[in-house]
């Protein structure tokens, strides 16, 4: 009995060390990745409404040849974003996958815990199968479960991936809920207003992106 308990304690301890080690890397900006492949497997977490438009505009500037294959993750009740993605990608090859939304607008924080768990369970097999190397996200809907799963799998050495979070341009002085959570986990955390620096622990500012 004693052996089992001490083994479990040891495993938990090692896991915690790994989590803190990764968070230390995140905070000290060791966010690079050198792929053995010629392209990076990439996930784009598509939010909704204005966030989708913003992400699509950012994607339009990215060298897409480097980020292949591309998987777009959409919320299952988001009807307009698929059209926007298809319009932006035109003839290119890409994939779309839908997951349940982790939090709807005006949903309470308590009930959003359960919907987030549900969304996370849907995300797990998807991430395990796709094994992304880079995840881009910019806000609500899908990004918390996807990033959470990706970070945990990275802690367990199953996945080696980097998270890029871009806070929405409409956030001038306060962070979004996604931003508040992901500032601890995202390897690259980008804000679009210099004033926002005072509201977060760490961020990169490259000017306005969209």
């Amino acid at each position, binding site marked *: 009995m004693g052996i089992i308990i001490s083994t479990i304690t040891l495993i938990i301890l090692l896991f915690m060390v790994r989590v803190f080690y990764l968070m230390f890397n995140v905070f000290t900006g060791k*966010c*690079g*990745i*050198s*792929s*053995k*492949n*010629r*392209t*990076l497997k990439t996930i784009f977490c598509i939010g909704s*409404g*204005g966030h989708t*438009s913003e992400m699509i505009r*950012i994607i339009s*500037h*990215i*060298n897409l040849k*480097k980020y292949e294959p591309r998987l777009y993750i959409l919320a299952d009740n988001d009807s307009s974003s698929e059209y926007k993605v298809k319009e932006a990608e035109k003839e290119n090859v890409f994939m779309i996958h839908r997951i349940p939304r982790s939090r709807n607008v005006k949903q309470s924080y308590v009930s959003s815990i359960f919907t987030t768990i549900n969304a996370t369970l849907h995300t797990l097999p998807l991430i395990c199968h796709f094994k992304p190397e*880079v995840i881009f996200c910019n806000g609500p809907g899908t990004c918390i479960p996807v990033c959470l799963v990706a970070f945990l799998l990275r802690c367990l050495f199953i996945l080696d991936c*980097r998270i*890029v979070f871009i806070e*929405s*341009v*409409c*956030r*001038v*002085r*306060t962070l*979004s809920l996604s931003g508040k959570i992901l500032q601890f986990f995202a390897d*690259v955390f*980008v804000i679009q*207003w210099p*004033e926002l620096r005072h509201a977060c622990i760490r961020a*990169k500012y*490259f*000017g*306005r*992106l*969209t």
Partner: protein
Amino acid sequence: MQRVYKKCFITVGTTQFNLLCEYIQTPPILKALKKLGCTEITFQIGNSNCEPKVYEKEGIKLDLYRFKDSLDEDIKNADLIISHAGAGSCLEALNANKPLLVVVNEDLMDNHQMELAEQLQVDGHLYYCTCDTLESTLETVDFNWLSPFPKPNPSAFISYLDDIFKVAVNT
């Protein structure tokens, strides 16, 4: 010389903004717009509680509709844009380099989008008001004083990404 704002485009995006719909069609607001030279109003009313219609009032042609696939054309044709505080609508109007007045929907008080409108007014790119101050704002502000909105520049961000995310060189 006083600039003339003949065509006015009003947009509320996908929101419901009943008060603005109601106010815009009242004689005091229409008169204030007419003083600015307005003869045509195109009004994208979204989910607001009023009926889409085309009619004339106070010598101004009004065209109310709910949605279009793209508002680009209406934005391009407008001399003045009045918008709700939605980030998308604000940025689209500013990127098209149009004089912009934002009317804040006070029914959505927890709306973080206020942040952006406030900052853009501080930076001198737009004016903002509420429905109650719409009339006086239209009468007092001078849109010539607004400064153009700088274009976004993602190149620093993109080169940073290229710097940290390396792929195997093509051999």
